[in-house]
């Protein structure tokens, strides 16, 4: 509206934000997809696949805002992915997967709620996705309660999982370029919600640091953890083996 430079600047900001949010959804969807055939009960085969599919749907819309979805998913190298380190963490046992889901879905829900209210390019997507993510958060919350307040073994496992992943949660609130979000309010809301769930699950809030020593905000800048490389190698291998082919 105000001439080419402003539109270009807006596009660059939209692209950066679409990549960050799109990569979060893409990578977490992939990790959840690894559960297929391995879940602890048939109901969870259905539920985890359902969440993975929702996230993949979001990823496809978001990446398409930034370019060609397949080129972005399959032809970027590790250092060009903008996802949070949290979502790339290996599935571990079911407790680790649930802790990762709790931390991420609580974040994504609050983020999308703010985007629904704002006037960014993401409003329409967020309006649809917020309903899906509310279910993801509900699923994670209920499993956190069952595992935390289930048996001594499940309590021990859930407690360990929450602690292990805690140091990847500081990064959630690093501002993402191109998103007009009240990050302080987002963090406060997230902490209140997660604290409430963990307390009801008879689990305390983990005490450790919420970021690693040198990696604060690192995923958004393309610095990832070691498990990420093998993951995208597997994801990209077939596509890259047939350059230019259509599928």
């Amino acid at each position, binding site marked *: 509206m105000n001439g080419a430079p402003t539109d270009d600047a807006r596009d660059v900001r939209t692209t950066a934000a679409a990549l960050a949010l799109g990569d979060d959804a893409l990578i977490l969807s992939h990790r959840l997809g690894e559960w*297929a*055939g391995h879940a602890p009960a048939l109901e969870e085969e259905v539920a985890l*696949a359902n969440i993975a599919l929702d996230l993949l749907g979001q990823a496809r819309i978001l990446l398409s805002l930034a370019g060609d979805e397949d080129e972005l998913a399959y032809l970027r190298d590790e250092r060009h992915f903008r996802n949070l380190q949290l979502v790339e963490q290996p599935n571990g046992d079911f407790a680790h997967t649930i802790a990762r889901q709790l931390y991420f879905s609580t974040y994504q829900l609050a983020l999308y709620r703010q985007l629904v209210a704002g006037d960014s390019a993401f409003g329409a997507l967020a309006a649809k996705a917020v309903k899906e993510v509310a279910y993801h958060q509900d699923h994670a919350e209920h499993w956190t309660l069952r595992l935390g307040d289930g048996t001594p073994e499940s309590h021990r496992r859930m407690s360990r999982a929450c602690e292990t992943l805690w140091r990847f949660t500081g990064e959630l609130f690093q501002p993402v370029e191109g998103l007009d979000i009240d990050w302080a309010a987002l963090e406060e809301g997230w902490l209140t919600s997660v604290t409430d769930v963990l307390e009801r699950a008879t689990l305390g809030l983990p005490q450790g640091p919420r970021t690693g020593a040198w990696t604060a905000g690192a995923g958004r800048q393309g610095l990832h953890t070691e498990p990420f490389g093998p993951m995208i190698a597997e*994801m990209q291998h077939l596509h890259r083996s047939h350059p230019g082919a259509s599928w």
Partner: protein
Amino acid sequence: MTAVTEGTAAEAAMETTADGRQAAFDAAVAADERIEPRDWMPDAYRATLVRQMAQHAHSEIIGMQPEANWITRAPSLRRKAILMAKVQDEAGHGLYLYSAAETLGTGRDELLDKLHSGRQKYSSIFNYPTLTWADVGAIGWLVDGAAITNQVPLCRCSYGPYARAMVRVCKEESFHQRQGYELLLALSGGTPAQHEMAQDAVDRWWWPSLMMFGPPDDESAHSAQSMTWKIKRHSNDELRQRFVDICVPQAEVLGLTLPDPDLRWNEERGRHDFGAIDWTEFHEVLKGNGPCNEQRITQRRRAHEEGAWVREAAASYAAKHRPVPGGGPAPGESARAGTALGESTRMEATA
């Protein structure tokens, strides 16, 4: 069996005798009425259905493995979404079918134990490996195609819950088949390497798919009785022939060949003749000597064992938080996630 609710007093009296109940059952089956869970039925009918529904359910959940093998390597996001949805559908089919079996008094835990200990089987087709991406397409086209040919008649099966579950399963299977076919079409018309991949997959999956219809009619152990009971509507060989006739023109459109030099149109019969099936291979795979028997059942057992603590936690939590005066777990409470988690799906499948 609606006859029970509509019956006259004389009929009701007759049904209290063993002969009378058998006669009422036979008459209901002959009249194409549905047998429902609370209706009287012969023990052998019940046992046959539980065995068949269990084997079908087991096939759905074991069948997730060969395809899940490609979820993490799917070559486009669109294909990845289709494949994940398909594998999810199979888990859903497993749920309906275990629930249908449960209407006859055999629970999911007991059936899973039988699967894990090798006392019940699943379809042998899933003991073949998925070696390339094209195998995902070949499974959709041929394996799901064969399954549909087998299962569409089951929508008219005499046992109500099974028939109703199959209506839904068949709808989803036909999506899967079209998606598989479309995947192969894209590969066949793609690069030479993609075309070769598609042909190789069809070459490997064609014969095992024909074996899915079971042994020839003269060697089929359960066929005659199941036909009388209207659990089965068509013979193995008849369904196999139907499948071959459907596939031949589809292969032509795909631009792929079927690996059978004896396959040709027989003008006189109005059907295709096809080559002899290697039943030795069929029996070997059935006995456990297929390429993936050990791998499939080991993964299934491991998932079940590694998930035990999760199911126990769910049961323990449910017992602690059950809103019952006096509270506390019921005596003999077992750790069954199915009870806590599967209620809505179960009701849907059996309603």
